[in-house]
């Protein structure tokens, strides 16, 4: 039975009572009392891969930057090139320390000219907000607002996400491209940000509705009702983690942290050293690149022998020498393989290289495989119908 009362020290989203009343299993996630699973992790994972799932991701934070110098501020703060964004477009980026390691990874949305929204991780909210204020201290012409508590953020993910959400909005969702967004009425709420983004490797949307409890629980219920015909399931953070792992997406505190730099994490394609604006971390990364790149890198591993490599387990060479560490490891419920992301020396990063993961004292063989472990099938293009003669 779920506890009916949240320990006072944990923070709650506006949907906390909804989760508890629907018998979700709750856990402490980065100081937040969040559902780890509803009906079962594997069922929820499969629902997202094959149908549609609904997640409460309101614990994510949001920082808005506005003012005539907001683009300059964003360019200084984040590693990707925000000058390339159009209004209504978003991209993956990161805030870095001077040494090129991560403060956090983020999704940057260009809401308008001189108006940006940075979506940040839950566990790093306060640190991130303080960091933004510190980096931009003394800069006039940009106004920083922590708008994290203004929104209930829901992720509707899976091949039937569009069909589900379309029943609840007059906005035509079909033309919204991946990593683009718009605004519109959803479940009777006006000006809801509707973004074609997510953290599952599937097609899907994230919507930002007013954070008050009655609205949040009503919208949650209406999405579940709309998705019922497609077999929607409410999903917890357990499935969110296995979905992102199959898709090899980084998680702060695991694949990225303040001891891991951008090139090690294979995120160089989101880092624009030559964007024309100096950003925090740029000089260190340029030096690393000039010196020939990182000495260790993130790779995907698939267990060959029986056993599951998990977060923090050592990675060994076949000679038994410790060469690295698993950052995230789990069974992949859809791909039905035991997979892991791990840091290893560059000499061990070639595909099919065999290594071992030390599973409770025993070396268990694994090999380097391409990432992502799972890639969603391309959406079928509707056939061009010949006009009826």
């Amino acid at each position, binding site marked *: *039975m779920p*506890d*009916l009362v949240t320990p006072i020290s944990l923070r709650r989203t506006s949907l906390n009572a909804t989760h508890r009343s629907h018998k979700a*299993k709750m856990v402490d996630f980065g100081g937040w009392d969040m559902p*780890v*699973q509803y009906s*079962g*992790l*594997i069922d929820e994972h499969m629902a997202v891969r094959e149908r549609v799932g609904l997640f409460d991701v309101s614990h994510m934070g949001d920082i808005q930057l506005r003012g005539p110098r907001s683009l300059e501020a964003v360019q200084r703060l984040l590693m990707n090139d925000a000058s390339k964004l159009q209004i209504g477009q978003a991209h993956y980026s990161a805030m870095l320390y001077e040494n090129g390691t991560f403060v956090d990874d983020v999704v940057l949305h260009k809401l308008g000219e001189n108006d940006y929204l940075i979506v940040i991780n839950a566990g790093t909210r306060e640190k991130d907000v303080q960091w933004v204020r510190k980096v931009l201290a003394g800069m006039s012409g940009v106004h920083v607002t922590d708008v994290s508590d203004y929104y209930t953020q829901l992720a509707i993910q899976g091949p039937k996400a569009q069909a589900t959400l379309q029943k609840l909005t007059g906005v035509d969702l079909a033309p919204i491209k991946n990593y683009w967004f718009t605004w519109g009425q959803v479940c009777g709420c006006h000006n809801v940000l509707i973004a074609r983004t997510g953290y599952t490797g599937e097609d899907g949307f994230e919507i930002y509705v007013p954070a008050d409890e009655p609205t949040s629980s009503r919208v949650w219920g209406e999405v579940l009702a709309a998705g019922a015909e497609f077999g929607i399931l409410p999903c917890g953070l*357990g499935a969110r*983690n*296995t979905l992102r792992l199959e898709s090899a997406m980084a998680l702060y505190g695991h694949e990225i942290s303040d001891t891991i730099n951008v090139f090690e994490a294979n995120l160089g394609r989101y880092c624009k050293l030559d964007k024309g604006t100096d950003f925090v971390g740029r000089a260190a990364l340029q030096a690393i690149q000039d010196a020939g790149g990182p000495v260790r890198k993130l790779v995907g591993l698939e267990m060959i022998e*029986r*056993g*599951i490599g*998990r977060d923090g387990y050592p990675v060994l060479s076949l000679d038994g020498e410790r060469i690295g560490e698993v950052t995230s490891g*789990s*069974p992949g*419920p859809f791909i039905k393989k035991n997979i892991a992301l791990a840091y290893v020396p560059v000499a061990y990063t070639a595909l099919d290289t065999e290594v071992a993961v030390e599973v*409770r004292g025993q070396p268990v063989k694994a090999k380097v495989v391409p990432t992502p472990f799972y890639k969603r099938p391309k959406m079928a293009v509707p056939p061009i119908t010949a006009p009826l003669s």
Partner: protein
Amino acid sequence: MAYPEKYRYTKEHEWLQVDGETGTVGITDYAQSSLGDIVFVELPKVGQEIEAGSTFGSVESVKAVSDLYAPVTGTVTAVNESLNATPETINTAANDTWLIKLTLTNPDEVNGLLSAADYDKFVSEETGH
């Protein structure tokens, strides 16, 4: 959750069924529910001697690893090999899915284990409801 009266229980959430000198070990319904979807079971070999309170294997769900603790001292006489292929049967029928059978070295040890009622009370206290 149901905890059969005919079993004895450990505070580490194993059940033990005793039939003469033979013991059969599984994990409780509470244990499987706490773990979630079970995907992997590691068990000892037949003939291995295990000591009460020591770990004799592990059960893994998608999210977590949990050690298995021997309720009593004994020699393993059988392991449930079918769990290699279908570990999820523990989720669907924890009370009826055995992990190992063993010959008890000291049958008196059984008296130190919890009854179904005591185990139920222990779980309620541990989870705070």
